[in-house]
């Protein structure tokens, strides 16, 4: 951790203890605490805070300086140019942003990037090796399990987890445990077929 970072940590604690406007008035103009306003909405809120994070994305270490407000989804798409994960609703309602965090399917739009430090993140780009599609990807192609394709990366990440969690036992169970992924093209019957096919291949 750099001196800057330490200073930021100490500073933020001190600010909090002093609290409110007095603390905010003491904000330094250093590299860590920039002077951008808090949207003009709050007289007592902090200014934009940038922090250093080290993320493990698809097996690669990525060191970044990010705004504390950054979601994992925005960091993946904007900072790391991993645009497979999609932004649909940005409120955890559609599942298009689904990635795996420590093997668990997770909504990257409701995960602060700062929280992902210390975890292993796998996105659709990291699901298979370069030469071969993952069985779930192949099953989606073979079963025509999409039309426009926008929800597909999230569906595939969710489908893989559905099987590894042991929740792909029947059509009804697949539908229930895939309900966090919406498809506006309504390719649902084919998605269920794809998950079933991949289940056999994955040995789930």
């Amino acid at each position, binding site marked *: 951790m750099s001196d800057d970072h330490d200073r930021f940590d100490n500073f933020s604690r001190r600010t*909090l203890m002093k609290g409110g406007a007095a603390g905010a008035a003491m904000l330094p103009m250093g590299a860590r605490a920039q002077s951008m306003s808090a949207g003009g909405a*709050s007289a007592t809120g902090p200014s934009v805070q940038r922090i250093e994070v080290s993320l493990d994305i698809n097996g690669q270490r990525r060191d970044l300086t990010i705004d504390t407000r950054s979601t994992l989804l925005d960091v993946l798409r904007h900072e790391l140019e991993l645009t497979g994960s999609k932004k649909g609703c940005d*409120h955890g309602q559609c599942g298009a942003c689904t990635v795996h965090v420590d093997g668990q399917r997770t909504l990257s739009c409701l995960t602060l990037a700062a929280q992902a430090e210390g975890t292993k993140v796998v996105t659709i780009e990291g699901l298979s090796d370069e030469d071969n599609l993952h069985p779930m990807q192949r099953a989606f192609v073979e079963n025509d399990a999409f039309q426009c394709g926008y929800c597909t990366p999230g569906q595939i990440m969710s489908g893989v987890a559905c099987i590894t969690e042991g929740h792909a036992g029947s059509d009804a169970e697949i539908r229930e445990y895939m309900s966090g992924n919406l498809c506006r093209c309504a390719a649902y019957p084919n998605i269920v077929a794809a998950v079933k096919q991949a289940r056999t291949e994955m040995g789930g």
Partner: protein
Amino acid sequence: MRPFYYERAETAVGAVASSGPGTHYLAGGTTMVDLMKLDVQRPTRLVDISGLEGGRYDFIRWDGDALRIGALTTMAKLADDEQVRRRAPVLSDALWLAASPQIRNMARISGNVLQRTRCPYFRDTSYAQCNKRVPGSGCAALDGGVTRHHAVLGTSDQCIATYPGDFAQALIALDAVVEILSPDGPRSVRFADMHVLPGGKPDRETMLKEGDLIVAFSIEDAAFPRSKYLKVRDRESYAYALASAATALRMEGDTVADVRLGLGGVATVPWRAKEAEASLRGGPLDESALERAAQIAFAGATTTEENAFKVDLGKRTMVRALLETARMEG
């Protein structure tokens, strides 16, 4: 989203010690990050408690019939726990019928019970009127709003927002206790006493004070193999309840020895139908007894034109849940 400081707490004591005005705890983030994007929640500092003490608050522990669950246990972990499914299915049902698999992987049970209402006038800051969001501003729902999803029990003339959760109904039915670490030290409160009715202060939803950190839930007598959660909604999955019932039964022959009844989707807070329970205890679970209990449970309902259907739906949900629970193996 407004800027905020982010900090990771290593210990529960450290998290509580660093609390202060404008500071909120962050665990799964499924409510907090959503409401920050909507500008409904405006913390100036988030203390991340998701990884406290290497998972010390992530546990499910039975001691005889007593159950203790760590506050940072995920919804998914508790929903899938084999022993909980067998010995207290109402807890598991209420979780797997809630949210989506992704959200259940992220959300911790302590945040789950503190989730905020889905009232559209609370969530949308373009409405000036919301007594919950801006105290004293009025209520857009009561002032000609769309109220199909709003509460019919525990309402006030200031707020009719529905408590949205499911798991809370199971906890209240099983007499759960909340273990809290506060700046003054540890204390416990009955789960039934944690949420407070909107009354004249809908912005105050619980009795939790600044810095209070939920560390565990405990249920002294959780052995209710004959228990379930029935949830009725517009969509079969991934939707909030229009009406729901958490039920737990102990029968002696055809007589009700013990019955627990939590109602969801219909009230402003997690709702225990104690008087309805009392009317059933010691008698048979027949049609007239169930009808009488349902009348008692909804006797105090206050409705709008759009949500009046919830009274009948709530009664039928509760009766069906009790009948289905009675058919389970004890």
